[in-house]
């Protein structure tokens, strides 16, 4: 039928019609404009943050001066170092465990299939969102009043509360993904709600929950350095104290930074190992740990041999005695190791409940409400927020440019040869391994700059993240169009620009926005170290009980901004799908 119609018309008209460009949907135009606008804003941010070459040169001079004046890199004496490491690990372990324990009931009421009532579900999700919105360092600053100086409890509580957001979200997601059948079976057998949960739900979600807790532990350890700025003891605090003395403390500060870095990498390796070995889950991390683990080619051990027929031969009484299969030994030893680690964490963190000033606890909690501007104005806070957002965008743009370069060269289908690919993949892994907060503190100390150092540090971390995503998304692209072009005699760079690039773009936009999102949160925290942006006001307000209303205001403003970015990201994903 169609054939009949085409033959009835002159062929030229048909070709011309097919050549006419299809109308570009308005949403697409809006999306492109938004992308361009955000790029422009990022570049503008770079300039307005005084990211000039002269500034870079000045800070380089600064750095050179610092390096020439400072002592050689040194470490604290071994017992001191061991104590500091123990204290840091103890605080992070306990904080993460506290968060995990609180997350159990929160996720229970947040998950659609276990929640007892709709309003509880809303409450649970709200707890998650709020706890995630308040940075742990702000919590630690605010709590410090209710505890004796030098107590580790503010740190534990801060990590414990802030981590609830992510952990309870992932816990609840895991609950929603289980098979509901066993739960129904327990109910049908007359089990109570609690019995349903512990007998049918918990055993199913346990592996994924353990993985979540380990993952969060890694994140908390990477972020723990910053807690030192809130007076929480440990490596971060020791680093802060060291960097406060110029020039004699810098060598030691650098040494401690290196220790934190090594600690993060080592524990990431361990946690990946546990995740893959214990849970039979492949190492999924993109960081150093996962890499090293995969390179070592460790496979999950074979399942324990099923208990032999001897049980049957011996009868019912004998069957009461559970055989020591390899699986049982392994599970038991893991369980006891976990208990031992938590107990050790408690001991290392020097927890002393006598350090709580109980009469400060309730006023501290009350002081956060209602939000207010204190002696400041909305305008001042908005200005500060703008600076923080500029830091986030500036670093994102830097990351984007560098990631396109590094990430492209790390992609198999773009890199000219395998050596180049391996080199750039390695660079990416190293960038990801560096805890960006530690790097930022170091840069801020060494260059004497606040925002610029923050931008550089965040850009580094961003390249690690974005570069890998760029490389992966390029490698995932089906090779068809490139093949077609090379068959047509196109050069490598022509192929890259004409075929690879356009198709990788949508996911790149999404990932860049995700980076902006995380950067805003990180820039807020960095402002606390560098004394700029929202962080500046947060630092001032957190330490005084009567100013806590401002903390709430600032947190709400940052959170609102993050929500806007997330909204834009969601919209972009729809537009550029």
């Amino acid at each position, binding site marked *: 039928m169609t054939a009949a119609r085409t033959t009835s018309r002159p062929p030229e008209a048909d070709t011309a019609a097919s050549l006419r460009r299809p109308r570009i949907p308005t949403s697409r135009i809006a999306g492109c404009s938004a992308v361009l606008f955000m790029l422009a804003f990022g570049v503008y941010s770079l300039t307005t943050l005084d990211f000039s070459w002269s500034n870079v040169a000045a800070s380089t001079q600064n750095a050179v001066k610092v390096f020439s004046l400072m002592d050689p890199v040194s470490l604290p004496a071994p017992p001191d170092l061991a104590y500091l490491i123990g204290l840091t690990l103890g605080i992070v372990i306990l904080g993460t465990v506290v968060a995990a324990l609180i997350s159990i009931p929160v996720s229970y009421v947040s998950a659609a299939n276990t929640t007892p009532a709709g309003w509880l579900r809303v409450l649970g999700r709200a707890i998650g969102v709020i706890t995630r919105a308040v940075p742990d360092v702000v919590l630690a600053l605010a709590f410090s009043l209710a505890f004796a100086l030098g107590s580790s409890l503010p740190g534990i509580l801060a990590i414990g509360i802030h981590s609830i957001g992510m952990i309870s979200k992932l816990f609840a997601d895991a609950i929603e993904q289980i098979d*509901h059948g066993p739960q129904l079976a327990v109910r049908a057998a007359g089990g109570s709600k609690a019995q349903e949960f512990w*007998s049918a739900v918990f055993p199913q979600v346990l592996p994924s929950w353990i993985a979540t807790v380990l993952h969060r532990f890694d994140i908390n350890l990477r972020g723990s350095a910053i807690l030192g700025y809130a007076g929480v003891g440990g490596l971060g605090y020791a680093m802060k104290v060291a960097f406060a003395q110029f020039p004699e403390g810098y060598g030691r500060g650098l040494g401690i930074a290196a220790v934190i870095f090594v600690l993060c990498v080592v524990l990431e390796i361990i946690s990946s190992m546990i995740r893959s070995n214990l849970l039979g889950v492949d190492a999924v991390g993109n960081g150093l740990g996962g890499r090293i683990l995969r390179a070592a080619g460790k496979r999950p051990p074979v399942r324990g041999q099923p208990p032999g027929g001897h049980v049957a031969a011996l009868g019912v009484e004998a*069957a009461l005695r559970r055989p020591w299969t390899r699986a049982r030994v392994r599970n038991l030893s893991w369980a006891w190791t976990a208990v031992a680690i938590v107990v050790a964490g408690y001991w290392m963190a020097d927890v002393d409940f006598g350090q709580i000033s109980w009469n400060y606890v309730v006023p501290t909690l009350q002081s956060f409400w209602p939000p207010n501007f204190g002696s400041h104005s909305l305008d001042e806070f908005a200005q500060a927020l703008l600076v923080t957002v500029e830091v986030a965008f500036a670093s994102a743009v830097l990351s984007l440019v560098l990631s396109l370069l590094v990430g492209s060269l790390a992609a198999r289908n773009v890199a000219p040869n395998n050596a180049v690919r391996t080199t750039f993949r390695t660079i990416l892994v190293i960038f990801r391994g560096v805890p960006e907060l530690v790097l930022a503190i170091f840069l801020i100390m060494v260059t004497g700059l606040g925002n610029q150092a923050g931008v550089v540090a965040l850009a580094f971390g961003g390249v690690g993240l974005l570069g890998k995503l760029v490389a992966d998304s390029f490698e995932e692209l089906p090779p068809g169009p490139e093949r077609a072009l090379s068959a047509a005699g196109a050069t490598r760079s022509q192929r890259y620009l004409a075929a690879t690039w356009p198709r990788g773009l949508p996911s790149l936009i999404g990932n860049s926005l995700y980076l902006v999102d995380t950067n805003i949160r990180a820039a807020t925290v960095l402002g606390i170290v560098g004394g700029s942006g929202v962080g500046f006001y947060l630092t001032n307000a957190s330490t005084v009980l009567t100013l806590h209303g401002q903390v709430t205001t600032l947190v709400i403003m940052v959170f609102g901004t993050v929500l806007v970015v997330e909204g834009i990201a969601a919209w972009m994903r729809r537009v550029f799908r």
Partner: protein
Amino acid sequence: MSSPKPTPIISVSRVTKDFGSTRALRAVDLTVEQGEVVVLLGRSGSGKSTLLRHLDGLERPSAGVVEVLGEDVATLRPAALRALRGRVGMIFQRFELVPSLTVLENVLTGALSRLRGPRLGLWAYPRSLKLLAITHLERVGLLEKTYQRADQLSGGEQQRVAIARALMQDPRILLADEPVASLDPESSDQVMRLIREIAADDGLTVVCSLHQVDLALGWGDRIVGLRHGEVVLDTTTDGLGRAEVMEIYGRVAASTAELTAIETELGAIDVGDGVSVGTAARGGRR
């Protein structure tokens, strides 16, 4: 009937169930006496699972009364409802064992209604219950699998574990929702025989939904046919032939073509599980 009528163990009268705009059951009447083995037949979506769920108090009727073991299910308080569910064992098409737990622990969950508070791990159960659970495992022929993970067992074995779990409840009634629909013929045979044996030995009342008419004929004492939520057939299987079931079920079965059509409707020609909307199968699998 000549013998005096005993009080029914299950009595469903004029039960209607609506899910939003779908009417799953329409004025269903069903009385089951102590010790009867009843088969529910009907094609997918006819309301078999919904009816069975009512018998365990997992669903409340929109209208009508469900009485199980002399109690009106809809009016029971939560504690009493749990106690009642404890006396009614249930077996599912997909077994619904907790995959990562040992067989023994899965069987022990059957005793939960008799225990206060949640239990986690084998050590949380008293020795006497463990002994009992192992006895039940021996009875279903799986003693040597006691400490194996449930997901390492074959389908037939898993269903037998589920039967042991139901036995752990010390039930008076056993409900089974297409217990062999996902099993191969051999295991399916084994499981059906096991249920029948246990029912006879323990004097259990059984209500079991099935897809296969042939299986139902040789197995049950009585057949109840459902169509679009209505009971359209209720008869004993004594001397009943396949054609007769078809005839009664379809009211009139004039031609072979029509018979085949009814047969399809009954689910005798199993179209597989892809279209099943049974509750157990629906349980959120992705």
